[in-house]
């Protein structure tokens, strides 16, 4: 843009400074994750010797082999996938449905409904009453405690409403003339037109489900039902890993402390990698959603 203008001394200094800071910021974000990767792909005893900075020195998949033999981890991985899929599907549709009704000015009691929703943005019940409620509803210690309490989200509902309002009214009117009901219009006409906002909200909801550590830790005591982040936190505590030591292959039992360290790195990579890999393809939706939210606020 400014290339045809001769750079001044000041321009050069600013360019150099921001470039250096940019490189520092990039490395500070990216390198810790990269370091986990190379460490986890290196022989544990060799890695413990230090000096590992750029590439694995003694390449091995052993650390990963240990993890994938761990049944609890595999089980929680599948459980987390199921939870994220079901939780996202139900959470997005339930919220979108309510938001669609709420975006119609002809909705009777719309003001009251909006008030009921808006109040919950500023005051919430607190942990203990919520816990007691979940207990009363027999949701504690079940898979459904992941799904049902996050069916509706008021902030996502606001995103949906902002989108639905700017769809042309004629869409609905012409369908009405054809004799379609409100639900049919929503499901067959509005939803297919709402892909951008659906993608955005779905991604927000999915990330929340995938990353949720708290629900398992405090609402579910049965470890068979724990989701991945909770299992990882527990696995990364040393006592848990030492318990798992018995299952190590003999060559790794030689230096258990180094092996422990390498397994920790590998475990983190296994959980962080999926989001890192899909991230470049989906990040534009996140940014889109963030912008819509910002404009609303």
């Amino acid at each position, binding site marked *: 843009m400014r290339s045809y203008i001769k750079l*001044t001394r000041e*321009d050069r200094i*600013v*360019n150099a400074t921001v*470039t250096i*800071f*940019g490189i520092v*910021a*990039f490395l500070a*974000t990216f390198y*810790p*994750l990269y*370091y986990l990767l190379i460490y986890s792909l290196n022989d544990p005893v060799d890695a*413990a010797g*230090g*000096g590992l900075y750029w590439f694995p020195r003694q390449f091995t998949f052993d650390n990963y082999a240990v993890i994938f033999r761990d049944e609890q981890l595999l089980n929680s991985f599948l459980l987390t996938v199921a939870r994220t899929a079901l939780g996202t599907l139900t959470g997005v549709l*339930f*919220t979108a449905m*309510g938001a*669609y*009704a*709420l975006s119609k000015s*002809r909705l*009777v*009691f719309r003001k*009251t*409904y909006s008030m*009921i929703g*808006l109040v*919950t943005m500023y005051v*919430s*019940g*607190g*942990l*203990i*009453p919520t*816990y*007691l*409620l979940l*207990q009363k509803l027999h949701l504690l210690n079940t898979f459904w405690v992941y799904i049902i309490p996050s069916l*509706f989200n008021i902030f996502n509902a606001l995103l949906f409403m902002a989108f639905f309002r700017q769809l042309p009214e004629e869409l609905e009117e012409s369908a009405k003339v054809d004799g379609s009901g*409100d*639900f049919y219009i929503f499901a067959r006409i509005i939803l297919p037109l709402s892909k951008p906002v659906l993608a955005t909200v779905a991604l927000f909801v999915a*990330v929340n489900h995938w*990353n949720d550590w708290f629900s398992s830790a405090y609402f579910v005591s049965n470890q068979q039902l724990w989701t991945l*982040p909770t299992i*990882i*936190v527990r696995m*990364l505590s040393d006592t848990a890993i030492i318990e798992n030591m018995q299952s190590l292959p003999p060559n790794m039992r030689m230096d258990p402390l180094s092996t422990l360290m390498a397994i*920790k790195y590998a475990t*983190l990579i296994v*959980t*962080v990698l999926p*989001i890192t890999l899909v991230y*470049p393809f989906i990040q534009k939706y*996140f*940014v889109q959603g*963030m*912008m819509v939210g*910002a404009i609303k606020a």
Partner: protein
Amino acid sequence: MKEAMATPNKQGGGTWKKLKSQWTLQLMILPCIAFLIVFAYIPLAGNIIAFQNFKITSGFTGSEFVGLGHFAEMLRDPTFHQAMKNTVLLSLLYLLVVFPMPLLFALLINEIPFRRFRKLVQTTSYLPHFIAFAMVASMWIILLDPKGLVNETMQLLHLIRHPIEFWTEPGLFRPLSTLISIWKETGWGAIIFLAAIAGIQPDLYEAAMIDGAGRIKRIVHITLPNLVPLFAMLFILKAGTLFTGNLDHSILLGNSFNKDTSYVIEYYSLQMGLELTRYSYATAISSFQALMSLLLVLFANWFSGRVSGNRLF
């Protein structure tokens, strides 16, 4: 009251007719309202147990009322004071150090002259926002281990002789928690400022350039002033969270060694309630905190209205 609104039978004839014609629309919103009543309003009403000696067996209605007893106990409780102090100090640190980072980062990104490199830095910077905090915490715990990357590198560069015990030194918890927050959220927080920068009229810059303003002058006199209103608004919002502790950091980065600085109100309430099953006492703590926060938000909103004429609600 809400029940009456949700099942509106006693309305006038016109309303009734309208309702009948839009019953599917009503059926679409009512599940959400029912959801909010169950999962938001019932727990809200459940705060009543802060004034009771709540027992699971006696329930909300059967438990004995003790008035403000739990609140009085709380105010005499040294652990509560410690947790409150930790909460507020950490929030202040976030407010002063973490909060301005996205603005500075957005300015930085905006000045990077090479388009592709700019995109790369920006895109990478959002990534940590999407990694579960449980993972981020675990990652930094092992990277900052006495035998981890950070200590190894610092020893290699002869910055330190002996490894630093980052996680057992109470004095280091707050700086570390601050740095990790910066690492995780700066890039994501910058999006809103980048959007605001993109909205600045280009002719302002052109006019400034014709007047001979250099890069730094343009940043200081055009970009920055255009971001101030947004920054002020977000700052006031953020100030409302002064009494809100960072539970994730407290649980996942905290341990018995750094508890003196890492233990926050939320964690205290959670341990009292779920680990010691002192439900009423735990609820007294959390509802006191929620009340303080609400008052602060209302005050911040009023203040914002006074100063800038911008109210959030």
